[in-house]
């Protein structure tokens, strides 16, 4: 998952980045509205966290502009101004949820998870498929009745495929959504992760959860259940 953070207070921004990295997010970040809008409209963002009071372009204008450019990823507003009129203005501009300052990072993470689930069409924190379930809150993956321990990167790949279940995700897109700009983005490494995931999720080669479409990418091929 690739998250965009636009927040002008540097310490808070660093706290947010740290917390989201821990959760396995790839991060784009800016402390300035103009740069933030550029990132918001050019990067393959999965979710944006935008402060309303920003130098350059204010948060509301950024949201209106990115919606006008048909960016449809969920947007969470951070705002010190928590009157209902401000909230309604923000939501009508195109935001999906708001968080009034001061807030606990845990609350923000919960809102982000909820927004991502909603944009993937899931209404609960448990993503359930035939034979596989993923708890986005605890980052736990269960195959059949057994918990499968995954590394952070393996979990990220699986969660991204699961939230876009049924769609074909190219290697390039997957890399875009999993890695920061400055990390080494070797497609071969991705292939290694996919192979390891398949071994862990499907040691007996019965489930075949991740399908490879030659030249196009990967797809989580399991049927959704439990909804």
């Amino acid at each position, binding site marked *: 998952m690739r998250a965009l953070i636009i927040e002008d207070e540097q310490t808070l921004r660093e706290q947010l980045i740290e917390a989201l990295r821990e959760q396995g997010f790839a991060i784009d970040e800016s402390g300035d509205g103009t740069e933030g809008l550029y990132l918001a409209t050019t990067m393959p963002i999965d979710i944006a966290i935008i402060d309303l009071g920003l130098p350059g372009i204010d948060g509301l204008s950024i949201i209106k502009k990115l919606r006008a450019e048909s960016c449809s990823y969920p947007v969470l507003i951070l705002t010190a101004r928590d009157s209902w009129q401000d909230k309604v203005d923000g939501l009508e501009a195109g935001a999906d*949820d708001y968080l009034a300052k001061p807030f606990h990072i845990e609350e923000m993470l919960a809102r982000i998870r909820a927004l991502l689930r909603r944009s993937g069409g899931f209404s609960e924190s448990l993503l359930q498929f035939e034979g596989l379930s993923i708890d986005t809150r605890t980052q736990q993956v269960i195959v059949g009745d057994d918990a499968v321990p995954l590394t952070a990167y393996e979990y990220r790949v699986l969660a991204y495929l699961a939230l876009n279940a049924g769609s074909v995700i190219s290697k390039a897109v997957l890399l875009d959504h999993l890695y920061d700009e400055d990390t080494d983005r070797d497609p071969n490494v991705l292939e290694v992760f996919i192979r390891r995931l398949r071994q862990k999720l499907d040691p007996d080669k019965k489930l075949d959860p991740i399908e490879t479409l030659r030249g196009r990418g990967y797809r989580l091929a399991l049927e959704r259940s439990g909804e």
Partner: protein
Amino acid sequence: MKSISARLLVSTAVVLTIFFVLIAISVSYSVHKRAEAALVDRLQGLIYGVLAATDVSANNQLLVSSDELPDPRLTQSTSGLFVEMVNQQGELLWQSQSSTSFIPTVANTPVGEWVFEQIENDSGKRVHRLQLATVWEYNQGQELPFTIQAVSPAESINVQLRQFDRSLWISLLISGIGLLLMQLWILSKSLQPLNSIGDELQQIEQGERDQLSNTVPTELAPLASSINTLLTSERNRHKQYRHLLDDLAHSLKTPLSVLKNLGKPSGSADNSVITTVNEQTTQIQSTLQRYLQRATHSTPQKLAAAISPLPVIERLASSLQKIYSNNVSIAISIETANEASEKDKNKHPLKVRIADADLYEIFGNILDNACKYGATAVSVQLQASNKAVVIDDNGPGFPQQLISQLTERGVRADTQLEGMGLGLAASAELMQSYGGSLKLGAPDDSSGARVILKFA
């Protein structure tokens, strides 16, 4: 004396009184003087006439030819006008036929000198007397000194003068009162603009108007315009302070967020320090929240324009449905004042005098509570006939403790209510500040929560 009109009235009354009294005294005095001078003239003529008719007889007696007397009244006994001649020893030498009594001569006055006086005669009546001491020369060198006096009754002249005085005082009194009344009218006319400025200032104080009108007289225009300027600058300053306070409070929230998130368990810092920081930031946060709310809502405009709450509710409903990802349905219904006018539904006749931003807070808190605490269906009913809005939901309903806290004790801004209570208390406080009320209960036909907002 506080009132300008009372001051003006009293001082005008004093000035007018002094003026009229002085006029009356001087007019009366000069009229009296003129009357006296005219009388003296007449009596002098009489005396000269009598002297002209007088001659000395061979035996040194004074003879007056009654045919040559200047005034026929001197021969009538009832006329009251008479002339007498008296020698230096006080003996009567001659008197006219009209004489009724003898009046003793005043002691020796120098020859040729006139003496005029008002005296009482022996029967107690007031008379005017003019005396002249003179010497009659006869038989070459012999002199007969005597005093001639003319007496006329004072009564008729005095009565006339008294009548004149009375009518003078009465007419002056009437014109004085008339002038005072006119002054009163002029005062009230000319002080009217001041009074209306006073009324307008009072209206400004009560929030019913925000400027003095421009229809003041030219003399007061500078005052009115400076008051208006003062009001505007005062209001701007007030607004500026509020914005500054607002900005201050809001700009503190970002650093508070940072502080709040220092206490992450993964940190290696001392746990007790983190706990304290957490407690204190929470306290700072709630203090900020409370005072911000007070500062923004403590001065509701009494004359907010009457607006329909419907657009506010609709915007809030669609926003909340977005947040709660359509898990909640919010239905808005309108009960018109008159059942027959069903087709006028779109006019949504319920209008309330509450500022826009405050309406958002009132309904936002209530609707958000309903969505947050597990309702799946919320109905908002606008009742124009009761000037009320009833919000029902099918959630778990209110805990009894909250109902009693909100309804029995009343809501105070510093009351610490947790969770659901906080937003409701804020809404209730806002309703109260606009003269309305917020009541909690349960829907008639089902379990759940009901909030009744009654508007003033």
